[in-house]
């Protein structure tokens, strides 16, 4: 006890910006959403909890990793969905699935960490390959890596089980809780998504994140300040890959299967759309984009039928929405929201000013 005390005194963050301070800075909107998400199982049906919200949070995490690279690093990488799909495959391969001749049946607490580690390594290597390119070339090379992975999974039967992939991948039972159950799975996803969100917000203001924004705005000056820009970007790929890998594990537990289509070109591009529609400037953007995407995917059928179009064309609606949002707000839905708030604030201020001058006049 006596030994532990002085160490504790040193370790106490005296004036490091603590979690408490960060939390205290959040507005009412943040608290309303947070509270709503926590009590959601009391309000929402299992369908809404899992098929809409949990799924949106999983896609949101993958898009968040894309947003981290694009928003803070200026790196448009399409590799994130592939990293998630790779993690999903590894969980099925190392863990348990219906494909008993391939799955190694490791317990989840070995299979999952190894899957996340290898997927992170894959994302980092992919980053190292594409880091010296810029803009459209980064998009091309990461897309190429993504399609290479797609065809590998499609054609390889010994490890990836080819066209059919793996089914019967079940979430674990742990601490006496079946994490595949509706409410536990919702909270598991919420916990992971909140953690990923919090970590990205925190790191964006830590030296690593600040320097990443520096490499985005002025790489030449960053080098002239002593930063190794290439190494910094590769580290950003690694960081983003960890988030995508976690999301990949959740994804395979959500779908209970993984196949080449999981990491196909469609989902890869969808992830870009989700991030851009939500907004690349703030970490909440990808989650909003993912929610809109999932809602459209789920209800576009009814919506289109109702308007009199053929329901199967929901992709058309998503594409159209994408076009409209990108045309009207380069900063996505977040940008629209911010502008509305700004306008509201200005009109309020104008009103207040008018009232003051009105009241002051004799």
């Amino acid at each position, binding site marked *: 006890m006596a030994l532990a005390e002085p160490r504790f005194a040193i370790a106490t*963050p*005296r*004036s*490091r*910006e603590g979690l408490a301070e960060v939390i205290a800075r959040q507005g009412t909107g943040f608290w309303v959403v947070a509270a709503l998400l926590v009590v959601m199982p009391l309000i929402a049906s299992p369908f809404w909890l899992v098929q809409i919200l949990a799924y949106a949070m999983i896609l949101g995490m993958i898009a968040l990793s894309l947003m981290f690279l694009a928003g803070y690093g200026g790196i448009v990488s399409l590799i994130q969905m592939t990293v998630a799909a790779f993690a999903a495959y590894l969980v099925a391969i190392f863990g348990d699935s219906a494909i008993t001749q391939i799955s190694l049946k490791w317990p989840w607490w070995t299979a999952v960490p190894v899957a996340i580690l290898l997927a992170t390594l894959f994302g980092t290597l992919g980053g190292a390959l594409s880091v010296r390119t810029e803009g459209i070339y980064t998009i091309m090379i990461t897309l190429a890596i993504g399609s290479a992975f797609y065809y590998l999974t499609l054609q390889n039967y010994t490890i990836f089980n080819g066209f059919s992939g793996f089914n019967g991948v079940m979430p674990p039972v742990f601490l006496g809780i079946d994490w595949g159950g509706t409410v536990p799975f919702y909270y598991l996803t919420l916990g992971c998504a909140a953690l990923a969100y919090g970590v990205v917000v*925190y*790191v964006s*203001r*830590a*030296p*690593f994140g*600040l*320097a990443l*924004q*520096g490499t985005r*705005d*002025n790489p*030449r*000056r*960053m*080098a*002239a*300040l*002593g*930063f*190794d*820009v290439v190494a*910094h970007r590769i*580290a950003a790929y690694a960081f983003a890959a960890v988030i995508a890998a976690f999301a990949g594990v959740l994804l395979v537990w959500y779908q209970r299967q993984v196949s080449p289509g999981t990491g196909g070109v469609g989902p890869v591009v969808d992830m870009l759309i989700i991030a851009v529609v939500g907004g690349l400037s703030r970490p909440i953007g990808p989650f909003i984009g993912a929610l809109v995407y999932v809602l459209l995917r789920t209800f576009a059928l009814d919506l289109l039928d109702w308007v009199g179009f053929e329901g199967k064309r929901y992709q058309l609606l998503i594409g159209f929405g994408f076009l409209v949002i990108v045309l009207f707000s380069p900063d996505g839905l977040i940008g629209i929201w911010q502008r509305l708030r700004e306008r509201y604030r200005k009109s309020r201020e104008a009103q207040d000013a008018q009232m003051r001058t009105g009241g002051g006049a004799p």
Partner: protein
Amino acid sequence: MSAVPNLERLSTASSGNALELRGVSRLFGALAALSDVTLSVRPGERRAVLGSNGAGKTTLFNCVTGDFSPSSGVIRFFGEDVTAFPPHERIRRGLRRTYQISSLFTGLTVIDNVYLACRGVSRNRFSLRRPRRDDTLQHAAESLVDAVHLTAVKDRLVGELAYGQQRQLEIALALSGAPRFILFDEPAAGLSPTERADLVQILTSLPAHIGYIIIEHDMDVALRVVESVTMMHNGRIFKEGRPDEIESDPEVQELYLGGGHG
């Protein structure tokens, strides 16, 4: 293989120059922005590089910092051959520079700009933890901001600053960490008379072991803060000497003081 460069390194280290250029040339297509420049500067020495527009002064700086690599020639920094080093390796060895056209992070605040500069030459560049408010680097950044008189605007975005303030910030970035040698590229350009006086004060009060090269068109500023002068023209050095020698040199007056700068 490895013994030869080591011997070479030892022999040049004993010559004890802060900066040494041997036959450095830089071509842009057919244009020789620098041709066969040989130059040495002692540790702690303060020198001006003067020359008309397009003389190759900025190109000289770019070659020294590694922003551009020279087409030929050797560059040594405190005896070490840095010709093939990337810029950040040179900076980590104590070299600093400012840019003729301010090169700042306009989307970040003043204090964050300087904090980045302090981070860049420290360890833990990849730190995922936010700094404490009593972090030593944070302190260093605050005092640098103070040294260039920007404390009042330290939390403003750099893009919103006045031109003169951006120039001051440019200097603060070059003073971060423990510089051994600094390259100032026209730091006084566009500054008001008071800001110029501040600049001269900052330069003259730098610790004696820190040497620098300053490119400056304003002779009043340049000749007051240096002990030696190098004159450049068309990518070549054509005269070196003490400030008073240069000032009274007829050839210099003909080529430079008389020509087009007024």
